[in-house]
């Protein structure tokens, strides 16, 4: 929340003083020798802190490292809050945002997006004894989720009468579900399966509803109009795809042997267009 407020204040002051366009961002990045990337750091396995090394690692980190290598600079990761992602980018506090960022039409007016780096469905999980077996049955029920992302608008769109309660972190929202403070919990499929796996023997009491609330295309966020930087990001992603490295990175973090347990990779780094 605090980051959020600071970002809001900064955005406000910048809007009022009318910050204007500056030189090419890619040139600036090369000059300072580092690529500053905003990440969540709390979103396993996309970006999270490895308990052993205390370093931020994950799927998005591997992509970011490849981009920094391509530019020839050092990657610097900066943890930011979900709601601060776009303001931080607009203000130039970070060069890129790799933070589970959904690419959607509304946001295209604010920032640019790289090629789609991940495709996920948003799903709901419920307690088995609630008797709920598909999404429309959540009507009129209390549904819990994280604040500031696309989860909330999507559940409202899918089930307009659901009473949505949101929290600062997905852990808090999931805990509220476990305590029975709502019948359902909504999140990106990858993150949801991760939380589900953590339940251990309690898993039998829960059901992940099959139906997708939405399909989300995640991408790396780039400040609007920085075509040089966008070109280098997209080129890196295309090269990763071509060399087979993209597939390897996916299997490493989301594959069958991970808690996420995805059997196949149903997308490629090929387009920055969304439906």
């Amino acid at each position, binding site marked *: 929340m605090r980051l959020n407020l600071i970002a809001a204040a900064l955005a406000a002051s910048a809007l009022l003083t009318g910050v204007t366009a500056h030189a090419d961002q890619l040139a600036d990045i090369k000059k300072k020798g580092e690529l500053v990337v905003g990440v969540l750091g709390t979103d396993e396995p996309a970006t999270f802190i490895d308990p052993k090394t205390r370093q931020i690692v994950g799927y998005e980190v591997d992509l970011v490292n490849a981009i920094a290598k391509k530019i020839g600079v050092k990657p610097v990761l900066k943890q930011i809050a979900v709601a601060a992602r776009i303001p931080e980018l607009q203000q130039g506090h970070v060069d890129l945002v790799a933070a589970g960022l959904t690419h959607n039409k509304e946001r295209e007016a*604010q920032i640019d997006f790289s090629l789609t780096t991940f495709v996920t469905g948003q799903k709901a999980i419920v307690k088995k004894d609630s008797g709920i077996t598909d999404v429309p049955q959540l009507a009129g029920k209390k549904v819990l989720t994280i604040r500031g992302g696309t989860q909330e608008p999507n559940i409202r769109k899918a089930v307009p009468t659901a009473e949505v309660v949101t929290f600062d972190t997905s852990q808090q929202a999931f805990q509220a579900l476990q305590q029975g403070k709502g019948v359902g919990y909504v999140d990106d499929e990858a993150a949801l399966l991760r939380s589900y796996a953590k339940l251990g023997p309690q898993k039998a009491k829960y059901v992940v509803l099959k139906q997708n609330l939405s399909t989300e295309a995640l991408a790396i966020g780039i400040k609007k109009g920085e075509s040089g930087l966008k070109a280098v990001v997209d080129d890196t992603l295309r090269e990763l795809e071509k060399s087979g490295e993209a597939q390897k990175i996916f299997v490493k973090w989301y594959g069958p042997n991970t808690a996420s347990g995805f059997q196949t990779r149903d997308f490629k780094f090929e387009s920055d267009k969304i439906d």
Partner: protein
Amino acid sequence: MPLFDYSLLLTGQYHDMLVAGLLLSLQLLAASLLLALPIALVVALLRLSPVAPLRWLGFAYVESIRNIPLLAHMLFWYFGAPELLPEGIKQWLYAGHIEAYSAIIALALYTAAFMAEDIRSGIRAIPAVQFEAGRALGFGFMDTMRRVVLPQALRVTVPPLISQTLSLWKNTSIATVIGVAELMYQAGQVESATFRSFESFAFASAAYLTVSLAITGLATWYHHRFPVRTI
């Protein structure tokens, strides 16, 4: 992109969300204040009681509450305390507006600790001879308090209590962390839906400021209308 989009604040869905947040914040304020005042009075009397264990009880309440941040209270009353209830009550409670109830309990208990201290100071401001006079007339402890000391003390106490109300009003914003859709929460929601950070937080700030100034105005008016009688 216009610099400041007033239309967002004046009409439409986002306007409705912000207004709903403001109304809920005011409800939180009213409910917690109504609950806090009697608790505060009881605690203040406990702290002044002639019976030692009751005094300790009052002391323990005030100190344990005042020395823990409100955020921790809020999380405790939402995530912690209700879990201790029997299953049936728990389910009934969770099906309703548990977020708002937890917030009201946290705010009321927290504010009561501060208000209790103000009331106690007010009572102590009344010279001991007044109390002795009451006892000399044959009143017991409670009657002396009720008929002689409290009517004078509460008058002294009102200005600091109004100031605590001001703090309570600002503290309602902390209810955001447990998902209560009050003003700060709605401002955050509008921000993440529209990215119009400045407009949504400007609305919240203006609303907090307006209500705060009204409360301050009330304190000033009371001070002039009912000045403390020189004793």
